[in-house]
C-alpha cells in the first residue's frame, strides 16, 4: 500500500531527501566512531527505518510535539535537524540536549518539538495523549505524534492510550514503526492478531497501513491522517512497515543471530532503500548530479562541524550531578 498518489513537488522531494540523508549520515558517523568509546551511551540505531520519522515529521512542518522511543535518532533529527545538540548529547557534553544526562535514549529538545524519547518500551505513548489534551486546551495548533515499535503494541498501555485518545476525542498520531521484531522475537510469536490495524480500528481510531518503504508515501499518508484527525477529533494509527538494518542495540549487523535472513532482507528492503529511492527521484526532478552532491556535501560538512563543536564543548563538572533533580526557576 502506497500513499504517494501523485508525485510531490520538487521542493518537498528535496526536503525529504535532505532529512533522510541527515539522519543516515549522522548514524554512519556513529557507526564509524562508536568504537572510539567516546560516545558512551547505548545506541538503538534508526538506520533503514528513518523514512518513517522523516515522512511524518516533515508532513507536520515543525508543528509537532514528538514523543519517541529509545530508537530516537531519526525521530530527533527529522524533527529538529539539530546535529549540534544531538552529537553533544551523545558525547556527554553540557551543550547536549540534556547536558549529557539523557544520552541516546533520552534526547530532548522540547523547544523544537522533540519532547523526550524514552527507554522503557511504550512509556512514551500515553504522554503524547496528555500533550494532545494540553494542545487542545491551550489552543496551540500543535499535533502530538508518538513513534513506537511493534513491540510496544504488546503492552497494555498502548491499548489504554488508544482508547483514552479516542474517548477524549484527541487527534493523537500514533505511528507504529513496524519492523517486525522485538529485539529478535518476531511479531508472530508475540501477537495473535494478523493486523494491528484491525484491532485498533474498533477502539475509535482511523487506521492506515503502509508497506511501501517510501518516504513520500509516508509523507502523503501523514498529511492525510493529521488533517482527518483534527477535522474529526479522533486519533490516527499509522502502521508503517519498515526494516531495521542493524542489530537491536549497537552499531553492528546481526545476521549471525539467525532470526532473519540477510539475503531476504537485502532483497525485500535494502535494495529499495528509501534514501536511494529518494536520491533517484531528485534526478527525475531534473536535479543534477552535481547539485545532489552539493546537497550531500553541505550536510556532511554540517555533521562534521557539529561533531567538532561537540568535542570542544565542556564536559559537565561534578557539581552538575545534583543539579536539575527538581525544576528550578530560571
Amino acid at each position, binding site marked *: 500500500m502506497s500513499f504517494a498518489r501523485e508525485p510531490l513537488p520538487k521542493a518537498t522531494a528535496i526536503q525529504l531527501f535532505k532529512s533522510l540523508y541527515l539522519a543516515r549520515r549522522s548514524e554512519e558517523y556513529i557507526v564509524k566512531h562508536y568504537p572510539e568509546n567516546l560516545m558512551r551511551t547505548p545506541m538503538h540505531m534508526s538506520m533503514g527505518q528513518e523514512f518513517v520519522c522523516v515522512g511524518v515529521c516533515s508532513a507536520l512542518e515543525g508543528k509537532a510535539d514528538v514523543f519517541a522511543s529509545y530508537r530516537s535518532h531519526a525521530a530527533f533529527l527529522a524533527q529538529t535537524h539539530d546535529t549540534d545538540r544531538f552529537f553533544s548529547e551523545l558525547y556527554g557534553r553540557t551543550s547536549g540536549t540534556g547536558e549529557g544526562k539523557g544520552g541516546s535514549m533520552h534526547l530532548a529538545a522540547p523547544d523544537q518539538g522533540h519532547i523526550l524519547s524514552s527507554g522503557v518500551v511504550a512509556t512514551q505513548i500515553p504522554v503524547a495523549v*496528555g500533550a494532545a489534551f494540553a494542545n487542545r486546551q491551550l489552543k496551540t495548533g500543535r499535533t502530538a505524534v508518538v513513534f513506537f515499535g511493534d513491540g510496544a503494541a504488546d503492552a497494555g498501555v498502548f491499548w*489504554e492510550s488508544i482508547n483514552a485518545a479516542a474517548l477524549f476525542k484527541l487527534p493523537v498520531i500514533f505511528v507504529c514503526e513496524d519492523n517486525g521484531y522485538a529485539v529478535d522475537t518476531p511479531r508472530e510469536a508475540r501477537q495473535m492478531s494478523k493486523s494491528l490495524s484491525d484491532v485498533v480500528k474498533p477502539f475509535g481510531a482511523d487506521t492506515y497501513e503502509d508497506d511501501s518503504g517510501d518516504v513520500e508515501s509516508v509523507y502523503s499518508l501523514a498529511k492525510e491522517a493529521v488533517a482527518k484527525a483534527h477535522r474529526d477529533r479522533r486519533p490516527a494509527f499509522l502502521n508503517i512497515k519498515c526494516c531495521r538494518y542493524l542489530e537491536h542495540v549497537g552499531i553492528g549487523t546481526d545476521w549471525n543471530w539467525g532470526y532473519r535472513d540477510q539475503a531476504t532482507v537485502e532483497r525485500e528492503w535494502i535494495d529499495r532503500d528509501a534514501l536511494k529511492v529518494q536520491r533517484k527521484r531528485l534526478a527525475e526532478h531534473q536535479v543534477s548530479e552535481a547539485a545532489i552532491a552539493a546537497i550531500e556535501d553541505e550536510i556532511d560538512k554540517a555533521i562534521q562541524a557539529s561533531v567538532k563543536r561537540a568535542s570542544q564543548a565542556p564536559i559537565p563538572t561534578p557539581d552538575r550531578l545534583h543539579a536539575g533533580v527538581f525544576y528550578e526557576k530560571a
Partner: protein
Amino acid sequence: MRKLDYAGAIREATTQEMERDSRVFVYGIGVPTWSSIFGTTKGIREKFGEERCFDTPISEDAMTGFGLGAAIRGLRPIHVHIRVDFMILATNQLINMVSNYTYSTGGKLKVPLVVRAVIGRGWGQGAQHSKSLFSNFTHIPGLKVIAPTTPSDMKGMMISAIRDDNPVICFEHRWLYWAEEDVPEESYEIPLGVGRILRPGKDVTVVGLSWMNVEARLAADILAKRGVSVEIVDPRTLAPLDENLIVESVKRTGRCIIADCDWVDSGFSAELSARINEKCFGKLKAPVKRIGFAQTPAPTVRELENEFYPNARTIVHAVEDVLGLEAANLDGEDFFSHERRFRGPF
C-alpha cells in the same frame, strides 16, 4: 475563621487554585461522580466544566502518562487515586518517566503534576485497599512526597503542591477526611519541605506520619496524666524531608519513637531512624523505636485487624518502654474507634 474538615480543605484548595489558574484541572477514576473521592472533588465539575474535572477509564498507567504529557505541555494536572493500592499500576510512569523528566532534559522541562493517593484503614479493607507505601515513592529522586495531617496544613500544602513545578505525591489518610479545625478561608501556601511541631514536650519525641499523629496526640494526653511530656513532630513533607526539625527535637528529648502507618521493614520509619541515629548518636538516651503495621498483608477480620494496625495504645507502651516505666493499665482510657464515625461498606 470557620471550621473546615480535611476533605473540605482539599476541595477548597483545589477550587481556589482552579479559579486562580485556568491551567489547573483534576481528573481520575470517580473524580466527578456523586461520591467524589470522599467529597474532596464535590461540585468542581459543576463549577468548572467537564474539560477541567473528568472521569477516566480504569487505565492508571496511561492516565499517569497523560498527566505527565499535559504537565510538560503547559497544564497543571491533579490526578486522583482513590486507593494507593491502585496507584501501583501507575508506578511505571511515576518512577520511570515522571520522576526523571526534569533531570534527563538537563533541567529544561518542568512537571507540575499533583498525584493524590488515598491511604488508610477502613472497615475490613483487607490486603488490597489498605496500603500506604510511603517509602516506595520517597525512595525515588525527583518526586516530592507529602502527607499532611491537619486540615489547615492540607489546604496550604495542597495549594503549594499545585503551584509547584515538580511532581508532588500527596498521601491522604481516609480517616482524616472528617477531621475538623479552624481553616482560613483565604488562599495561602504552606511551603513543602517544612515540618511542624504539633505538640511541644521534653521527655520523648514522637515523629508521627499522617493518621498516627492523631493517635500520638491521644497517647500524649494519656501520658501527660502520668507526668510524661511528649513532643509530637509531624514531618508533613516526607521528601524533601525537614530533617533538621526532627533532629533538633530528638537532641532535646534524647528519645525518639517513629509512629508510622505503614510496614516497618524497609519503610519510611527505617529512613527516619537511620538519619536520627546518624545525627543524634551521642544524644540518644535510648535506641530509636519504630511502630508500624505488622509485617503481614492486612487481614480483614476485625480481631486480626486490631492486631495489625498500631494505635495510641501502641504508642503509650512504646513510650513506657523507652522511659523504663511500668506499663500502665489503660482500661479506663477512651481510644479512637472509627466505627463511631462510619460503617461500611467502603
